[in-house]
């Protein structure tokens, strides 16, 4: 009888542990994937950005340069924090083999234009009204920034407001750590 009691208690205990493990996995598991983009290490999805000045920029035309693609919106407070940092970094890198692109998402043109006027944005800024570029890059919020090396491969995704040091670090990485071998592309 005593053995039966021990076995039944053990079975119930193991069952409880299993249920708690499942709940724990459901709540805390697998979240890292959202922060680390699955696109890092792959060829950046190409896009043609319609700029606010009426011209267009095609990402693939910028091959040979490291590219910083920053997703932003005028209503986004952290975007306002990073805007001056982006502007001063662009001034620093604009004559080097580096390009900056701002992609405005989930916004309207009037607000976006007044934002650019107020917070800077001397580098090309354009709009993504259908959200196609944002979803192509796996953007889940703003600000989000992608660093692309001169071969066109994504080297890093950064979520949250940037500062000069972060930009230097990831642009340095994009400029230094690239090779033309093994470049693969995700399906569009």
């Amino acid at each position, binding site marked *: 009888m005593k053995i039966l009691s021990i076995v*039944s208690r053990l*079975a119930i205990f193991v069952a409880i542990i299993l249920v708690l493990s*499942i709940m724990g996995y459901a709540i805390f598991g697998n979240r890292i*994937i959202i922060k680390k983009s*699955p696109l890092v290490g792959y060829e950046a999805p190409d896009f043609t950005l319609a700029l606010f000045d009426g011209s267009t920029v095609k990402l693939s035309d910028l091959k040979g340069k490291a590219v910083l693609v920053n997703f932003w919106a005028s209503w986004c407070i952290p975007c306002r924090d990073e805007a001056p940092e982006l502007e001063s970094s662009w001034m620093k890198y604009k004559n080097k083999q580096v390009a900056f692109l701002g992609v405005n998402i989930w916004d309207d043109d009037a607000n976006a234009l007044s934002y650019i006027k107020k917070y800077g944005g001397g580098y090309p800024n354009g709009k993504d009204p259908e*959200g196609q570029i944002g*979803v192509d*890059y796996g953007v*889940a919020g703003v600000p989000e920034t992608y660093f692309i090396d001169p071969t066109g491969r994504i080297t890093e995704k950064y979520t949250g407001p940037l500062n000069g040091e972060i930009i230097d670090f990831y642009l340095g990485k994009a400029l230094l750590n690239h090779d033309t071998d093994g470049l693969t592309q995700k399906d569009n």
Partner: protein
Amino acid sequence: MLKDKSKIQVFIVLSLIILATLISKSFSLSESIDDEAREISYLLMCPVCQGQSVAESNSDLAKDMRSIIRQKLEAGESKEKIINYFVDRYGESILGYPPVKGVNLLLWILPALAVVLGGIGIGLFLHRSKAITGQEINIGKVENTKEDKEYLKMVDKDLKDLDK
């Protein structure tokens, strides 16, 4: 003249039939795209929401995703290809159901194992309780010993003597 009139009538009827067929086909195609888009939207979780699928969420991102799903279906892409497109960009956590592979296998096996083990535990517990109750009943029905029988006989005899 009459022949020409009947020819025109036949032409009109045939044209109407062709037009009706085309309209009904285009409606059914649009309905099937709507159904498939809805199905895919329910299979994907909104990356910026808590426990809401792309179909249920009103966020800007979910709206963009629904529109992209529809565009891709209209372009003739398969359900699997569309789902893979989103997984490639947002990771497997975007799936509303865990894929049956790797660590996720545990999510499919553990609940069944928990039910079996819980069942065994409860079964054993009930079995044990029943055994204890049975034991208690048996204790109440213990056979009288020889001494008890002799004692009871003496009691009977004394009672009969008292009656006299």
